[in-house]
């Protein structure tokens, strides 16, 4: 890559010192479907809306929440194809780390490496920044952790966070509802309620996706049956 016409970076500074492409990338994220994450005392939950463009789409083929390692999962808001590419790269980096050090990659390291990739795409020739923000949920020796990674490559650790369309309402809701000593089950209920806040139409196990990781350090996506159970409890 690096045709002579595009060997310069497409992301250049504006006179005010901003990187306009990244601002636009964040706008792309802001118009994506809502996703959120909550860190509980004994685990982490991440959830997202799964609005499909038509009822004809087979919803079982769409998986927005992916696992990067057995104990780290990720969800996004923004452009799906960009997310796929990042997931592929992150999985490879996690495996390389494991090959080299024979230990499962710590959550902070994986987040840092993913963020590094995202930053590279803001400073290389002929490429554009990724149009996704990621919420990475993991459980390692340091306990449960939740990180948000932005298109610029910056990352933050959150107790609870939301991204996408309904971000301001969702964050206000989370600020009110969040407690430090929440259990994982409570966190799932809170996540569902937060999604419900800005949901257009009827919420059901077919149009949301929830991933959890508990003290067993195994990340998994809840089955539609389990989501139905939680929804029933919330009602």
């Amino acid at each position, binding site marked *: 890559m690096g045709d002579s016409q595009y060997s310069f970076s497409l992301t250049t500074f504006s006179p005010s010192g901003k990187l306009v492409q990244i601002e636009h990338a964040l706008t792309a994220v802001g118009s994506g479907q809502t996703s959120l994450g909550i860190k509980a005392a004994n685990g982490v939950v991440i959830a997202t809306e799964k609005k499909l463009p038509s009822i004809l789409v087979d919803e079982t083929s769409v998986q927005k929440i992916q696992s*990067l390692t057995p104990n780290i999962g990720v969800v996004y808001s923004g452009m799906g194809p960009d997310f796929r590419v990042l997931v592929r790269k992150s*999985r490879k*980096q996690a*495996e390389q780390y494991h090959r*080299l050090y024979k230990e499962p990659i710590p959550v902070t390291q994986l987040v840092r*490496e993913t963020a590094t990739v995202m930053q*590279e795409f803001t400073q*290389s020739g002929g*490429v554009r920044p990724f149009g996704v923000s990621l919420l990475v949920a993991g459980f390692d020796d340091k306990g449960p952790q939740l990180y948000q990674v932005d298109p610029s490559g910056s990352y933050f650790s959150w107790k609870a966070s939301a991204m996408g369309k309904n971000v301001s309402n969702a964050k206000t809701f989370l600020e009110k509802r969040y407690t430090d000593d929440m259990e994982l089950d409570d966190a799932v209920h809170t996540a569902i309620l937060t999604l419900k806040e800005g949901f257009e139409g009827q919420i059901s196990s077919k149009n949301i996706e929830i991933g959890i990781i508990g003290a067993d350090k195994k990340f998994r996506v809840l089955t539609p049956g389990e989501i139905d159970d939680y929804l029933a409890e919330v009602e």
Partner: protein
Amino acid sequence: MSNSTVDVPLQGGFSFDLCRRNDMLSKKGVNPPSYRKTGTTIVGLIFQDGVILGADTRATEGPIVCDKNCEKIHYMAPNIYCCGAGTAADTEAVTDMVSSQLQLHRYHTGRESRVVTALTLLKKHLFNYQGYVQAALVLGGVDCTGPHLHTIYPHGSTDTLPFATMGSGSLAAMAMFESKYKEGLTKDEGISLVVEAICSGIFNDLGSGSNVDVCVITKGHKEYLRNHLLPNPRTYISSKGYSFPKKTEVLLTKITPLKEKVEIIEAGEAMEE
């Protein structure tokens, strides 16, 4: 395109630059240092519910046993294991690398790994290195298409067999298999046949010895029986302890002076600074 800031070891593999020089040196009688080989007896067989793999546990460095209890059955995937004979570093590195590739593949497909996938990844790698990666492998596992057992030779050729042996003790082990193997063995019959074959290798081949490792893989379940049999126990210390006399006995004392005085020789000229 993008600068990698992640420090990973150089990819691109074996550098053949020094091979000609090494050849020339060995013709002149200077041989490269010998490396750790596993000598080995490794076996595998298919029984009615799946696959059983077996291996001895001796690693040799020329005529010396350098590891009396090494692990020759390597993990590839939850449902696939691989025994390795040949150069220990080669078998470990190659199985580790393919195991990593299989893990990535599992993430991308969301499915259990197939034995033929592991087989193809291994043989491609070995063929690429034209036999310089000296790893002779017995690969076995159970996937959605059933139980499979393969042997892979260092140059990259493979066989698919109902029972297989590799390594320096392969003839001894194959003798046991050829006379006693039949289709539809039960798990216990299979394990005892594998143990017999490995023991035959352990006792009749110099490059194999110590203990027997067994791995049983069935659909959805695996049992890794490390040191299933220890036919060569080592008695380390006598339980009573050893008692040596405290000191040597003095029989006779005689002192002979060497010279009464010391002679002084006239000093020569002082050294010039």
